[in-house]
């Protein structure tokens, strides 16, 4: 038998066959056109600094309708027989990224809400700061703790007795900003201290894919280490620290002391952000992002205070944290660079159980409160899927369970059981082996009419089980997904 050969004719035929399957529904077409239209209305490339004053806000008003609509549709239940939600549902990757960043309209809502809420809020908004607004201003430009006015938020409504919403910034940001008079716009990390007081924490640096979240690993964020003090990154993960009372490896280093509130301090004690919630460690995991020791008590949602005399283990807290580069100029011949946590986007979202990772929830002025936990027996429910590897102990040492499928695809049928909220979906290989799956961040299991559908981070339904007697009609190839066997 001759081996199968590709020739021009067969190539054209196969491509024509593939193209023939490309059926864009009217609803998908309309949604796609609406998204393109909204994005083109924005008409800007997300430059960090620009000579012009704000012009993003007008476009943001146009795009907000799309963002809100897709956010609502993304929560729509699956249709009969576990079918996909209506074709118009589910934001695309692009719109979901926008949905996690407040538009000017949403920022306005957050500002309005701050008049009634106690406490600060930290948000990321696609906004602009007009730095010409403070020219000629009478009165102090700098306040306590070295925060100084740098401009005014564009496109938002000021309080009744004010002409603008002023923005201040600390020395790290100010020293790296271009000269005054230059507009600052893009994804801005803002701390809203009140209706009249907004602090620029930094311009958010997108990850390599142009999205918001950087991975919670030291190597994952290394690409941003050269960022200056005016830039921050957003990392979603577990913040934890060692117990200060069992710190070890303490030594007095030569030279001047390290910068305060930096990861270079600690005398053996450490704080870190990691992709998993392993607790009780005596030092930061090698792969984690080391941060200042005080980060846990200052920025972890609902931080736990370890009692003296206990084992001192603190409960890792899951959130989206804002990080800025901090430099230790005394560290050897070249400068050492590390990370300092400067804010938390997520409000009180510690894990509901040690084995389940909650989805991050950005603080948003217009976002709805989190839905109550679904009942596994409900006819329609959304369950969180595991997005982190399983760990077990070997001789007291945490060990990650074997992961396969990273390089070698695993083929099988997707199976699910709504009665197993801890792991509602798994993979059954052809030889009967059952595999747990580490899903991408943001994936959920949607249960409806006895079927289980898996939705991605945009709400788009992915492989699903079918509630009939025939086998599941989707195969899952996890060639690039971590698929871990039981530990």
């Amino acid at each position, binding site marked *: 038998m001759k081996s199968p050969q590709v020739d021009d004719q067969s190539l054209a035929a196969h491509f024509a066959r593939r193209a023939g399957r490309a059926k864009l529904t009217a609803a998908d077409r309309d949604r796609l056109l609406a998204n393109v239209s909204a994005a*083109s209305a924005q008409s800007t490339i997300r430059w960090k600094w620009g000579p012009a004053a704000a012009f993003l806000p007008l476009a943001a008003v146009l795009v907000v309708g799309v963002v809100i609509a897709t956010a609502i549709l993304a929560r729509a239940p699956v249709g009969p027989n576990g079918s996909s939600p209506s074709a118009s549902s589910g934001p695309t990757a692009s719109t979901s990224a926008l949905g996690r960043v407040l538009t000017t309209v949403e920022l306005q809502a957050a500002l309005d809400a701050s008049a009634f809420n106690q406490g600060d809020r930290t948000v990321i908004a696609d906004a602009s700061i007009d730095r010409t607004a403070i020219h000629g201003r009478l009165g102090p430009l700098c306040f306590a703790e070295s925060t100084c006015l740098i401009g005014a938020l564009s496109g938002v409504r000021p309080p009744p007795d004010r002409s603008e919403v002023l923005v201040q910034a600390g020395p790290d940001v100010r020293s790296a900003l271009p000269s005054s008079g230059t507009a600052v716009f893009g994804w801005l990390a803002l701390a809203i201290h009140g209706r009249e007081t907004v602090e620029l924490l930094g311009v958010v640096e997108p990850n390599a894919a142009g999205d918001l979240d950087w991975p919670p690993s030291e190597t994952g964020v290394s690409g941003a280490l050269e960022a200056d003090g005016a830039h921050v990154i957003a990392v979603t993960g577990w913040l934890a620290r060692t117990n200060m009372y069992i710190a070890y490896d303490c030594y007095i280093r030569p030279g001047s002391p390290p910068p305060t509130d930096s990861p270079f301090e600690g005398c053996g004690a450490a704080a870190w952000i990691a992709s998993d919630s392993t607790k009780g460690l005596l030092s930061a995991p090698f792969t984690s992002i080391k941060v200042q020791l005080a980060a846990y008590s200052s920025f972890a949602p609902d931080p736990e205070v370890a009692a003296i005399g206990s084992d001192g283990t603190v409960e890792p807290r899951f959130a989206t944290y804002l990080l800025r580069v901090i430099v230790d100029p005394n560290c050897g011949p070249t400068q050492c660079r590390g990370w300092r946590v400067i804010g938390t986007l997520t409000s009180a979202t510690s894990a509901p159980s040690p084995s389940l990772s909650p989805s991050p929830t950005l603080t948003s002025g217009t976002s709805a409160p989190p839905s109550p936990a679904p009942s596994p027996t409900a006819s329609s429910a959304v369950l969180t899927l595991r997005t982190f590897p399983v760990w077990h102990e070997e001789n007291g040492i945490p060990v990650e369970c074997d992961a396969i499928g990273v390089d070698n695809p695993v083929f099988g049928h997707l199976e699910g059981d709504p009665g197993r909220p801890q792991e509602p979906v798994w993979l059954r290989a052809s030889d009967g082996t059952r595999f747990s799956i580490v899903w991408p961040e943001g994936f959920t299991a949607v249960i409806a009419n006895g079927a289980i559908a898996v939705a991605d981070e945009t709400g788009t339904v992915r492989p699903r089980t079918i509630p009939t007697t025939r086998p599941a009609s989707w195969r899952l190839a996890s060639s690039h997904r971590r698929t871990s066997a039981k530990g």
Partner: protein
Amino acid sequence: MERSLVERARDGDRDAFEVLVRARVDSVYGTAFTILGNASDAQDATQETFISAWRAFPGLKDPERFEAWLGRIVSNACRMSLRHRRTIRELPMDGSVDEPAVTIDGSGAATIGADLFDRAFEKLPIDQRALLVAHHLDGRTLDELASELAVPIGTVKSRLFTARAALQKALEAQA
């Protein structure tokens, strides 16, 4: 008329841009789907193509080359889409799994089944997929591809040969 629309869009006319988008959304989606083999990714890539095109429009020097220019953006968008989605890959069954991977005709020649071809094709890097699709589906000539990629024709030939060889190898591995 077409040139006028392209020029107006290049100058920032959103109405003209919308006309261009509406006229091409299906063909761009078809190309993206052929390259990616997945509706969700293809929709992302299609959307990203037009958004990128709008942003890059001021850099389009020759309106006559709009199609080739857009084709290059489609390839880039497909690459970005795959990078964004590389954590998941779906293989819809669609009743195609039971078909033989290879059928033999009377002369002993092997015909490649759809499932086998799709699996092998999706092993290729996006650039190779895009090049094969541009040449064998969209019918772009070597001259056009050379112009689009800003490389000599010989390089296009070489890349096409390499892509074909890679596909052949993937087919044999999958079979």
